[in-house]
């Protein structure tokens, strides 16, 4: 999931021109889980803005329940048909969702003016209803086979691939003593699994061209193609 957090209200207000007519859009999937763009959060945002004198023409969190704002076809239907009368009056859309959602609204409104209501902070695991944390940095070149399923790119503050720096103390990272050293976690788990020999393997530097932006994925029949500056990679699901 894409974790997001609302921007401070004053920053959002600062984006808006006096009298600008704003329509607030949330997301019922990730942003709802982050309490940044679910139904209650979006409704609250509309009233918080109104209280500060902003001209809010309406708000919505596209349904059905649990659907992502970044699913363009649904968002387009909701904003252009269901809410078409209201969104037509809007000068701009304030998006309470991740950066993908912001762009989806732009597409869904044929190039509508958008404002980011949230900072998109990471891709994470929803560990509990109250806690989301990051286990993958979306690098495009996964090496967790050698690290017991734990990602050193993400869990090590320096993204070291070949073992720990010398800085961990009591299992905590030198960069933040409140956080576990990622390599301590990897070492412990490899040891527990009886796979410590995997730590002997030299891990090559990352192919950062697979981490180039923007990247895309195209699905065609039984094949999927990943496009990045590393070139197109096509995988067949049937071989």
């Amino acid at each position: 999931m894409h974790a997001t957090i609302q921007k401070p209200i004053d920053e959002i207000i600062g984006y808006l021109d006096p009298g600008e007519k704003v329509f607030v859009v949330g997301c019922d999937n990730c942003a709802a889980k982050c309490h940044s763009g679910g139904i209650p959060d979006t409704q609250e945002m509309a009233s918080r803005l109104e209280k500060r004198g902003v001209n809010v023409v309406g708000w919505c969190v596209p349904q059905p329940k649990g659907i992502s704002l970044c699913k363009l076809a649904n968002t387009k239907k909701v904003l252009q048909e269901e809410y078409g009368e209201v969104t037509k009056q809007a000068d701009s859309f304030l998006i309470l969702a991740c950066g993908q959602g912001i762009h989806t609204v732009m597409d869904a409104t044929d190039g509508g003016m958008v404002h980011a209501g949230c900072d998109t902070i990471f891709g994470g695991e929803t560990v509990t209803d109250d806690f989301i944390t990051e286990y993958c940095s979306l690098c495009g070149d996964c090496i967790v086979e050698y690290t017991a399923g734990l990602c050193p790119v993400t869990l090590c503050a320096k993204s070291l691939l070949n073992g720990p720096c010398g800085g961990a103390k009591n299992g905590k990272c030198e960069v933040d003593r409140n956080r576990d050293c990622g390599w301590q976690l990897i070492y412990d788990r490899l040891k527990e699994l009886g796979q410590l020999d995997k730590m002997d393997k030299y891990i090559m530097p990352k192919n950062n061209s697979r981490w180039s932006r923007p990247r895309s994925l195209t699905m065609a029949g039984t094949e999927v193609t990943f496009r990045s500056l590393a070139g197109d990679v096509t995988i067949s699901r049937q071989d």
Partner: protein
Amino acid sequence: MSKFKEKLESGKFVITGEIGPPKGVNIEKCLHDAELLRDYVTAINITDLQSAVLRIGSLAVSSKLIERRIEPIFQLTCRDRNRLALQSDLLSAWALGIENVLCLTGDHPTMGDHAEAKPVYDLDSVQLLKAASTLNQGRDMSDHELDSNPNFFLGAVVTPGAEPMEPQIIKMKKKIAVGARFFQTQAIYEPDKFESFINQVKSLNVPVIAGIVILKSAAMAKFMNENVAGITVPEDIINEMSDTPKEDRKKKAAEITARIIRQVKPLCQGVHIMPLGWDELVPEIIKEVEA
């Protein structure tokens, strides 16, 4: 030919010093400190934006030492440069006459004075060593041929007091496999623990140079014990320091340092003295140890 390399490879004991480049453009003081050390050490480490604090670069200061015929150990960290810049700085270093390179991960930017800087870490220290070894063989990381090749003497670091020790040793072996020919350690204050580390790595047949940080006060010891991984300054040394009147601290510091050096000397192939500003003590310490 690197005297440092020659000595280590012929099994001799080496003493190295360390200089931190200044924050500003005046390098007179740091060159003066290097001159003070000249007759006492084989080579001098030049730190690379130590503690992630912006300073003059280690390449420039290393090159200034070469001009003065003082042998530098060029420290190179992965924090600020991608693989293109690292390899280029290595080629530049060789062209400037630098032979010894210490390859390090580097402290994270948030620990320094530009906390908002982008941490690079395109390579880690193992990968950097491999890249430097590849340059030594006349090729770059993309396997393109160089028109002429360097011949660096490459080193790395290890933290003997780390807990657990095993991952440090695994990484040390990886560093040796990709070209590390000497190791400098984190500061040593407990010779007996250092001995047990040495026993674990003896079979790797690589010279280990013990890190020696001059202890300036009991407060510094307590700070390191709480915050720095792999360092435990024993109670009795802390008490020795705190029982010493302020005006005698430098003398005491020199005495403690010399004692530790004498204790670790039979265990390893050198000591790397980090004076942290008390540079003037170094000649005295070395004279005492060698007496």
